[in-house]
């Protein structure tokens, strides 16, 4: 089951600057909070978000525990050629998921 929501246009004019927005289900547990038993809940965050367009990295973000739960990221990209944008989230406890979106450039 997908726990990711991505908003990117399906088509774009060549050279158009498009916005890409992504939301993912993740607790972003800070590692600073005590749990019900008084012990600190271990840190569990997404550390890194990257976006590639036809394999070339176009955006990357290093995240800290200060990023809100269920992280939201928005950025822009220039649509130079049709292709696949791969969004990838990696982090603690071996977290690694990706989502692909196709953008057709006319």
């Amino acid at each position, binding site marked *: *089951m997908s726990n*990711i*929501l991505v908003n990117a246009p399906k088509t774009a004019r060549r050279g158009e600057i498009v916005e890409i927005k992504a*939301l993912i289900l993740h607790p972003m547990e800070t590692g600073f909070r005590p749990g019900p038993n008084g012990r600190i809940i271990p840190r569990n965050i997404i550390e890194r978000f990257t976006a590639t367009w036809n394999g070339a990295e176009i955006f990357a973000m290093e995240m800290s525990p200060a990023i*809100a*739960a269920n992280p939201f990221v928005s950025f822009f990209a220039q649509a130079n050629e049709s292709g696949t944008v791969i969004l990838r989230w990696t982090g603690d406890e071996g977290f690694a998921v990706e989502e692909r979106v196709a953008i057709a450039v006319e």
Partner: protein
Amino acid sequence: MTRRLLVLGLVLVFASSWAVAQVAADKRRSGYQDMGEALQKMQDDDTANPGMLFVQLGSQLWAKPVGAENKSCADCHGAAATSMKGVATRYPAIPQGAERPVDLEGRINLCRAENQKADRLPPDNRDLLALEAYVAHQSRGMPIAPPYGPILDAFRAQGEGIYRRRQGQLNLSCAICHDDNAGKKLAGIAIPEAHPTGYPIYRLEWQALGSLKRRLRNCLVGIRAEAWPLDAPEYVALELYLMERAKGLPLETPAVRP
């Protein structure tokens, strides 16, 4: 001819201004209107609203066969966009042949138990909330339209009684905060009018989607009262009354609240 047109025009002008006056006379405010612009934008944008993650999850669960019958919601109900449109505006309701009302999550669990032969999901279980959010989302923008009947009316009256009864160590009723002092500040935040227009809601405090039941429990803790057991009929009775108070206001599910 011109005179008739003029009369028609005047009638139209009066009719429209009467309609505007009616809307203006309705001073009720959804919690949405008490939020800052940033949070309103978060709710309005479907890729920024974290509640939409759960709606998406709910749409996947809707189509997933479960239980001994190996049936999905869709196997009986088809496309939720048609079959569930408006349903959430009419809950809590009395299931056919039953003698007491259930809320939407109760109805989903009844379906699981009776039709899918699957386990009931516990309150605030993520899958249950996701299904509830998905179903209620099909009524987004539609006015709340409570059903009536002798049994429902009796439970609704009980709900109003709970709403007006002082309880807890702070000796407060729901009405003291949400009728008498709504709009004033408590701990820096406007006290809402307590219209359940967007449940399940994504409450920033929870950093998750949660039910009206969970929110009511937070209220009870706030007034230092003992929360009712999770399966208590009080929650449904109170929800019936709150939905009556909110009758006609549009559903917002999934709403974002601080």
